[in-house]
């Protein structure tokens, strides 16, 4: 039990350590190839030995510039800080993603359940499920918006679309994972297909499902962010990214801050799923440590 609880902590520590390394590399790059900078208070001045285009203050702002931008007003003459605005936008996007995630997971599980019980339907439809993922979402999003109108529904559909695929594939694998003898055993009890599904296939699929749900969690966030543009939903991170992209020349920190917040949302969602996984698979041998 102790080892499993520690797994979440280790993941979080790993993410933290990685962030520190990225921050160090970031500032080292600027130290060597960025624009000259000074610290007013102590009269510190640094002139980097090289000039690299990608390291100048417009391409790659100092991390502290990005951090301090969070505390400044989002627009001139507004009370709300950028940080407050982004957290609000992140929660909004997360909510859209969560609805898409839940729908996508349910659709994925339902499709997989049908496919493993019918070879005919599996052969007929699985190729289309796979083909669906080769259509770029940017091509599909406008069609969905035309079909369902601008607004939350279109965004949720796009998030769902990106979520159901990994769940379908993993659930098919998981639902057919039980030992054939386990199914024979259930048949010797004269158990119905439904009972075999509920008592053997579904519990056996849970570890596989969690692996897919972790993928789906991040995919649903991407889907929601991308969908907000064509979906015409102004409250979320997607629109914030579009707006700050247009203001990039005057304030590159805002876009960078938005990107960090979007990443943070994905990581948080991932960790929530991982926590659920640890709690659900507690006690199981072997399979709990998988994936």
């Amino acid at each position, binding site marked *: 039990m102790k080892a499993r609880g520690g797994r979440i902590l280790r993941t979080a520590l790993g993410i933290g350590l990685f962030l520190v390394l990225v921050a160090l590399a970031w500032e080292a790059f600027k130290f060597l190839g960025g624009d000259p900078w000074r610290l007013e208070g102590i009269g510190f001045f640094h002139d980097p030995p090289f000039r690299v285009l990608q390291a100048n203050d417009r391409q790659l702002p100092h991390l502290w510039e990005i951090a301090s931008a969070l505390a400044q007003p989002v627009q001139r003459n507004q009370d709300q800080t950028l940080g407050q605005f982004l957290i609000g936008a992140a929660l909004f996007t997360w909510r859209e993603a969560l609805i898409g995630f839940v729908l996508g997971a349910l659709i994925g599980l339902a499709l997989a359940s049908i496919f493993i019980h019918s070879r005919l339907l599996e052969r007929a439809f699985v190729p289309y499920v796979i083909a669906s993922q080769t259509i770029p979402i940017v091509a599909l999003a406008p069609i969905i918006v035309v079909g369902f109108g601008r607004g939350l529904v279109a965004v949720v559909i796009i998030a769902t679309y990106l979520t159901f695929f990994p769940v379908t594939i993993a659930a098919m694998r998981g639902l057919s994972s039980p*030992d054939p*003898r*386990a199914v*024979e*055993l*259930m*048949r*010797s*009890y*004269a*158990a119905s297909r439904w*009972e075999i599904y509920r*008592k*053997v296939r579904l*519990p*056996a699929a*849970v570890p596989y499902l969690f692996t897919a749900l972790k993928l789906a969690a991040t995919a649903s966030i991407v889907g929601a962010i991308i969908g907000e543009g064509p979906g015409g939903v102004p409250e979320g991170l997607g629109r914030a990214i579009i707006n700050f992209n247009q203001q990039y020349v005057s304030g590159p920190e805002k876009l960078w801050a938005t990107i960090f917040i979007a990443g943070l949302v994905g990581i948080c969602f991932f960790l929530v799923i991982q926590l659920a996984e640890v709690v659900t*698979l507690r*006690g*199981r*041998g*072997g*399979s709990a440590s998988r994936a």
Partner: protein
Amino acid sequence: MTAVRLADVQKTFPIPSGGETVALEAIELEIGTREFVSLIGPSGCGKSTLLRVVGDLIQPTAGSVEVNGKPAHQARLDRDYGMVFQAPVLFDWRTVEGNVRLPLEVMGFAPSERDRRVREMLDLVELGGFRSHYPHQLSGGMQQRVAIARALAFQPPILLMDEPFGALDEMTRERLNTELLRIWAQTGTTIIFVTHSIPEAVFLSTRVVSMSPRPGRITSVIEIDLPQPRTDQTRESERYFELVTEVRESLRGRVSSSAARARAEGRIG
């Protein structure tokens, strides 16, 4: 009373390259209630197939299978079978208790009755202290005892066992053999037991059925007249060794004659 009656049972499987293999041919066998019958023979002789035909998990190509006076299919629907495989096939998300409870849940026993039976069965296989453990926390022998408790929980009149102790070490196997005989005497179940081990078959059975491969058929049925109850002394008795020899020769007789036939066929070809 007759528990199982097999009349002219045949089973063929299609093979991918075309044609078919005869897994069972002209099987005639009657097994009485409360008998302990072992099926023994080399790999591929169809003994596991025969077990599955009796349990209605595989349909025979021809012939009839009657269990407790009804077709095997009806017997399965009536929940007349308990099954134990070579691997314990326990569910890793259920505790020991949960695994034994599974058939009782499927069969719709009342919760209080379930609990009573689970407790009783775990006491029977002497795992009362491990009810809340998960399978991966138990040794192989203990896992197999859980599988036996699960198979017996709904008191099936017939227990089908497919090499249940095949994966265990010799000491554990002998201990579980003795335990299985005690359980057999206590429950009055008819047992059909597939094994590779001649001493195991002789020690456990009231009759040993030896089989030969390609096509799978019964070559001889040997009555085991060792006195009951059987103990560690039984394994050292003269009669035991005589019967082991007899079973071995019945199997070897088959092996040498099939080798002779192969040689003869080789000469013709």
